[in-house]
């Protein structure tokens, strides 16, 4: 079935057992919505100097957006901000490749499982939701660095 290329085992695993889900303390919080389908995410970033100390999130949405948030957490937490941004850019590029790219496995690890999703324009936004939220939250955290307690 063609859908096997979208719904890779890895994606289904992350969807059924998301990593790092739940809201914890952070330096910045953003709320992103995918108006096309109603997927939503509230995401917090906590920085520790130049390290991504934590990415916590509360989200609802389809398997793709859920799995992608889980993979995001897996991949970026613990990385230097610069490195993390590189991964984010590589993921964005992969998702915009319209099925033409396989992704850089060394950089993207589990996230290359999303290569198949890039063929489905309506789903690309689902996959990107948490990543764009992270980018936005990180920019805010870097700009202001006001420490924000959990609500």
């Amino acid at each position: 079935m063609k859908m096997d290329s979208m719904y890779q085992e890895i994606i289904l695993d992350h969807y059924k057992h998301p990593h790092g889900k739940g809201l914890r303390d952070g330096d910045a919080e953003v709320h992103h919505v995918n108006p096309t389908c109603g997927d939503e995410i509230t995401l917090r970033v906590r920085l520790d100097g130049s390290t991504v100390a934590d990415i916590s999130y509360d989200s609802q949405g389809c398997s793709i957006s859920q799995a992608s948030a889980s993979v995001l957490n897996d991949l970026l937490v613990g990385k230097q901000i610069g490195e993390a941004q590189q991964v984010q850019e590589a993921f964005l590029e992969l998702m915009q490749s319209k099925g033409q790219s396989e992704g850089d496995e060394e950089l993207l690890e589990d996230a290359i499982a999303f290569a198949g999703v890039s063929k489905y324009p309506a789903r690309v936004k689902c996959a990107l939701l948490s990543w764009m939220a992270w980018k936005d939250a990180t920019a805010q955290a870097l700009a202001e660095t006001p420490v924000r307690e959990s609500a």
Partner: protein
Amino acid sequence: MIHTPRPGLVVPGGAAASALDTDAIRKDFPILQRVLHDGKPLVYLDSAATSQKPRQVLDAVNAYYEQHNANVHRGVHTLAEEATALYEGARDKVASFVNAPSRDEVIFTKNASESLNLVANMLGWADEPYRVDADSEIVITEMEHHSNIVPWQLLSQRTGAKLKWFGLTDDGRLDLSNIDEIITEKTKVVSFVLVSNILGTINPVEAIVRRAQDVGALVVIDASQAAPHMPLDVQALEADFVAFTGHKMLAPTGIGVLWGRQELLEDLPPFLGGGEMIETVSMSSSTYAPAPHKFEAGTPPISQAIGLGAAIDYLSAIGMENIAAHEKEIVEYAVRRLQEVPDLKIIGPDTAEDRGAAISFTLGDIHPHDVGQVLDEQGIAVRVGHHCARPVCLRYGIPATTRASFYLYSTEAEVDALIDGLHTVRAFFG
């Protein structure tokens, strides 16, 4: 010049049990022969979003462009006269389709959304007694399509009028228990959907119209999901305005209708200004043509109106009663079979009583996007999301629904395919 439709034969004396010969009808729709990936035939269950088009409609549009195309009105040459006759002929067809007292009450717009915005804007710029201002109240319902919410929100923001709405009951119907508090002496306009595109509910027009008339409010009916599926009679509805859209009723995209009562159309101010809608123009001021032209600025959707006329010919030849009977049968079958699927919950009325041909549901906690995607892999086209009616999703505490919707070409076999598909979805995410 005029194309007579050769639609699928109607089984003579067809009772509800076999109102339409769908085999014959399906042959008129080229796209229904389409085969998708892996050789799966298309099962199109998304007609509430837009309908497919029969050959007869495409032929009428092509014949127009290949033989008669010209700008309408104001032309003395042969093509211009032919094009004008075809365009105005389409207006006649729409007028008789909705039983309008006069053809001059039929305004062509680009879609139902424009029709509804047109009303909201007319009322914002009107003189008394129609003018909506800071002392006025506007009433809608919680099950409106965004196209019947946002225009009224904009009007309310821009005039200071108060926006109020009817809530929903747990089984997907309008809660009219507080109708006398919602519709009051201050209410200038009540706008509501005849058939909900997300819940499928058919609303009780009479109760609402009665109350609106008592307080002297204008009534606007969004018939976008009604006009394609059942006989529509604007006089019987006793509404002041009725809006619908061509692409959901076999016509091309780019054409909508606003029917309005003649004396209102005479009294209300224009919306878009430009060619065609004027009587005489000087640099400092202009006077406007009588309705419907007053509301049709610029070159109208000529071929689209002609396509809508051909669609109406096609629907009328089959008979709107027969179409309604056929859909009722399909919906009964679908409602029953859907409820056999474990964890499936219908959002909206869970019987075929007073409901149209769109059925929304959730499937456990599998997100509708995933449901739709896996169904698509099996060739089954359903719509997923909030269906431009997000307040309904908020009301029922769900992010989105999966919606299957039917039309004259839908079959029980397609319902069966959907049910099988849903079992596959469950297995996949189970």
